């Protein structure tokens, strides 16, 4: 019944990746998971192929942002601890 089987796969894939990232989220997994679920659920009615692709692109963007957030958080903590000059 899925309208776009390929896209459906991609959406599930990015959702899983984001969930995995959420395990290390500073405010806790639960905080992350509920919000992520809400964000995806709020888009459940879009059926246009281009809209779905845009949604996936946005999710990819968010993934990169979160990875960058983790990197920066760690970098800043370590710099404070070790290069405090």
């Amino acid at each position, binding site marked *: 019944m899925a309208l776009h089987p390929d896209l459906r796969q991609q959406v599930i894939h990015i959702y*899983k*990746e984001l969930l995995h990232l959420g395990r290390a989220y500073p405010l806790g997994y639960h905080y992350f998971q509920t919000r992520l679920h809400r964000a995806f659920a709020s888009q459940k009615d879009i059926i246009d192929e281009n809209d779905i692709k845009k949604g996936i692109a946005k999710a990819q963007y968010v993934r990169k942002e979160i*990875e960058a957030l983790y990197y920066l958080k760690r970098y800043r903590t370590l710099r404070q601890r070790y290069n405090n000059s």
Partner: protein
Amino acid sequence: MSVPLKILVPVKRVIDYAIKPRVNATHTAIETTNVKHSLNPFDELSLEAAVRLREASLPGPKKSPHPTPSVPDILALSAGPAKCTDVLRTAMAMGADRAIHVEIDPKTSSGKDKEGGAEGESQELEPLGVAKLLAQVVKAEDRNFVILGKQSIDDDSNQTGQMLAGLLGWGQATQARDIVFEEEGEGKGGWMVKVTKEVDGGVETVRSPLPMVVTTDLRLNEPRYASLPNIMKAKKKKLEKKSLEDYGVDGGRRLRVLRVEEPPARKGGGKVEDVDGMISRLKELGAI
């Protein structure tokens, strides 16, 4: 034919940087049970550096315009309890090709204190033990480039790289912030490594021929995140189990931890009502 770069990246499993360590009840060590562990952040930098060296040598968008040695194989290694396989999987997810886990059982380790260490005392290898082990691995696995974190964030020794270079008689560059390869002689195929190092108040640039030991500092690169698909792929990569005896290394401890203390708690500040209050307080403290 130029000399290929056979890289060894030793990694350590440490308590996650975001966790505040707690001293155990007997004041002999840090509490490690049920505490989140991860790959030592400085080792992530060295892994990233190794993976980027390979990317620079392969055709593709990240290919370096300069001549770079080919990187046939990146080997990650960790020595410690069984759970070290987790960080080795992360290392392989980031791009290491294979891994060796030198298993050290915290209970029956050959590094057990001869006098019978106190309950809960750390039995992990000291930097010298690790350096001896790495020197043997370098020989057994025919490595010519070792890149490791300058220190681990748990005991902050900053010794392993230096000791390893000493044991092997290789050149070393510590606290690297930039690593560049230069071809030595026309077509002879030798490589010089130019490393920019962090030093107090500036940088220092050194050059050494291969083989070489490099330790990494914070500004070297931005380590990639071990993504879920890559972690899945890493499960198929080869992970060998070895023991200290396989390499003929005695990991005996030379130091004994007498006591571990938490840093003194920070005293809270006080509020003053007005300017006069502040001046009298400053006088009290002898500041003016």
